[in-house]
């Protein structure tokens, strides 16, 4: 077994770079949106064969066991080559895996982890409900304990990649009498093929069906599908650290969008337009400084420090810089933007898709409002 962490940084970087350059499909470079599973699958299988599906998992569970420092190099090289940001959708490797590794039973680890790595099981996340969005802890999906089973009833919504998935991990209310709304919640694993599960795709504003609504009608699952203790699901779901959390603040997508802007400007000769250049430069500097903020948090990770409430600064900045860039991209494309509504596979500069896709970044991983609340209350200690 290769000990990646023992390698010199430069050698490791070159090894990663070589692999990516040799295996990543050219036509999928620098996408601003996340490709569907079927499109990205050949690359994922390449990663799986190489044993690189889960760079951050410990070696004993089939991961690469990378230190934060090596992990950041790994991400850095992906960004450099324009590898599609696959992690958010792959709830299995990024989210569920680490939670199982900390909280799962030996059986759960043995049975589930290998199938995540090979994409035999594709997991999605079932947290949000129609009446539990920003206020996640008010979720009402019911998990009634009957003998050795839970009986699930309720609805999950805004589940990413639900149509591509085979399984879902979710939070459900196992004790309706609990005093605080964060209590009485259990963390459960469900096969989407189970009787009583209905998956309905939700078309989104950008025309793709990235989200789902999943209905559970008396779905019965064995109690062994629970991760962590009974009624302690909230804690399990909050246990993600470091890499998994910093990932959503990565400036990678903003960089990809900025490359589009650059290409558009070149195509239209806008670098001769002083008014354009002023605004372009402002965004270039916003991006440069966003990267500096990212490096700060990445360095903290490398030093083994805990990422705290002020990670919201990175997430907000990243999301809003992203939006500013794609809004300017759309504005700059002018009437050209009216003529390209489909993906950019023909190499033309598409402004509409990035603009629409990025509408979600200030909603998905906590709304901007929630992040500002966190900064005000937990970082600046302003009163309630």
């Amino acid at each position, binding site marked *: 077994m290769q000990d990646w962490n023992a390698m010199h940084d430069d050698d490791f970087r070159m090894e990663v770079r070589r692999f990516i350059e040799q295996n990543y499909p050219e036509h999928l470079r620098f996408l601003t949106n996340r490709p569907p599973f079927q499109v990205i699958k050949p690359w994922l299988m390449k990663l799986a064969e190489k044993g690189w599906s889960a760079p951050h998992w410990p070696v004993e569970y089939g991961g690469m066991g990378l230190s934060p420092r090596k992990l950041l190099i790994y991400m850095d090289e992906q960004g450099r080559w324009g590898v599609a940001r696959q992690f958010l959708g792959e709830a299995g490797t990024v989210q569920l895996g680490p939670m199982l590794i900390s909280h799962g039973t030996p059986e759960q680890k043995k049975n589930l982890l290998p199938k995540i790595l090979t994409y035999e099981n594709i997991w999605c996340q079932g947290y949000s409900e129609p009446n539990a*969005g*920003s206020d996640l802890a008010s979720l009402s999906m019911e998990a009634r304990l009957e003998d050795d089973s839970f009986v699930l009833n309720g609805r999950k919504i805004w589940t990413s990649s639900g149509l591509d998935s085979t399984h879902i991990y979710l939070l459900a209310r196992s004790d309706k009498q609990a005093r605080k709304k964060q209590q009485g919640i259990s963390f459960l694993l469900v096969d989407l093929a189970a009787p009583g599960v209905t998956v309905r795709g939700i078309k989104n504003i950008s025309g793709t069906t990235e989200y789902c609504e999943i209905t559970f009608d008396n779905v019965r699952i064995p109690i062994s599908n629970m991760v962590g203790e009974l009624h302690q699901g909230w804690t399990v779901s909050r246990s993600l650290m470091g890499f998994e959390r910093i990932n959503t603040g990565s400036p990678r997508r903003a960089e990809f969008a900025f490359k589009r802007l650059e290409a558009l400007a070149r195509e239209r000769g806008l670098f001769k337009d002083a008014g354009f250049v002023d605004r372009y430069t402002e965004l270039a500097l916003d991006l440069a400084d966003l990267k500096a903020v990212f490096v700060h948090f990445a360095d903290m990770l490398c030093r083994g420090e805990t990422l705290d409430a002020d990670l919201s600064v990175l997430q907000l900045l990243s999301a809003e810089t992203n939006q500013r860039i794609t809004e300017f991209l759309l*504005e700059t*494309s*002018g*009437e050209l933007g*009216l003529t390209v509504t489909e993906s950019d596979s023909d190499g033309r500069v598409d402004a509409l898709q990035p603009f629409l896709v990025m509408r979600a970044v200030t909603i*998905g991983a906590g709304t901007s409002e929630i992040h500002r609340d966190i900064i005000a209350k937990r970082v600046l200690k302003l009163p309630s």
Partner: protein
Amino acid sequence: MNTINESQSDPAEELKQRLALLRDSARQYAGNAAHLKRARALRGTRPGHDAVVWREMAALGWTGTMLPEQYGGTGLGCAEMATICEALGRSLLPEPVTAAAVLAGGAILYGDNEALKAKLLPALASGDLLPSLAWREDTHATTILAVAARAEASASGVRLSGAKRLIVGGAGADGFVVSAQQHGGLALYWVPLAAVGPRLVFHDLPDGRPAADLELDGIEVPAANRIAGPGVAELALARAYDEALIMTAAELHGLSTRTLEITTEYLRTRVQFGKPIGSFQALQHQAANLYIQHRLCQHALQEVVTLLQQPGVDENVRGALASRIKARCADASLRITRTAVQMHGAMGFADECDVGMYLRRAVTLAAWLGGADVHRRRYARLALTEIAA
């Protein structure tokens, strides 16, 4: 410019009452919830609008609002038409009223071919004809007068060459007003659909309505189809363009207004953390900011159309007013619809939520005929003496 009207009597009050009547009737027709459902269903289809509704609109007088009575119109002005367009914008009606009645219709009306006017305009007013203006070639051109297409004398009349793009309303058009260079300068020709043959290609705009590209090579029309010759054509195009800008601004204003209503209603009713999200001050202040943008559009639009009701407005003044209001309403509508999506949370990102349709229509109309950046610069050239000089 004085901020106060000079005159003692009050035709403004009279106009205001007429507009209120028009607005009520237009809203009543367009506000029927069936229209929004219809607009949703028609996305991605061809021609992308409903011929029956087009005739109903004509029957209500909307396609002939700005046409003189001699051509079957009602001879009203920009203010009345803007009121109608605002109502259309509110409900996202897909029928190409601005493109056909204002832009193409205006190009015909302001031309100098009386015979053609007598033939085409009454048909437009009655709903029997849907004309479309084929002007754009380079998607980056920032003026309607940038034309490379050519018109040359041929045995049977005039032969056109070149290509036109992004013809809004073109998928259901009965004929096209085509701009082309000829000896002596720019001219406009009427090209009936029958002369077009297989030269039309369609694609979807961001709002799901179709636009057409038109290959001109090989099209021939009689010389009598010349709507306007050099000199007249430029003036006709410029005026039709300015009026279409104002009507597009009115549509944008209408759709922002409705978006704001939908969103404040959502803020009042959506509950998170045990209370309506509209009780959170951060969202309240964002909503207030949107409302301010809305009011800027409302009063600027009112000022612009009132000024244009006066006879004999200078061409540069008209252009500056048109660009000013297009820039304002484009910016405001994008900001309002973007924020509306954000305020709706994940729901706002779903296609089934109406605010997404409003955002996509805002994106489309904001860019069509030039975006805010283009029109701020045009305004500067036309209105700010320091810059024009």
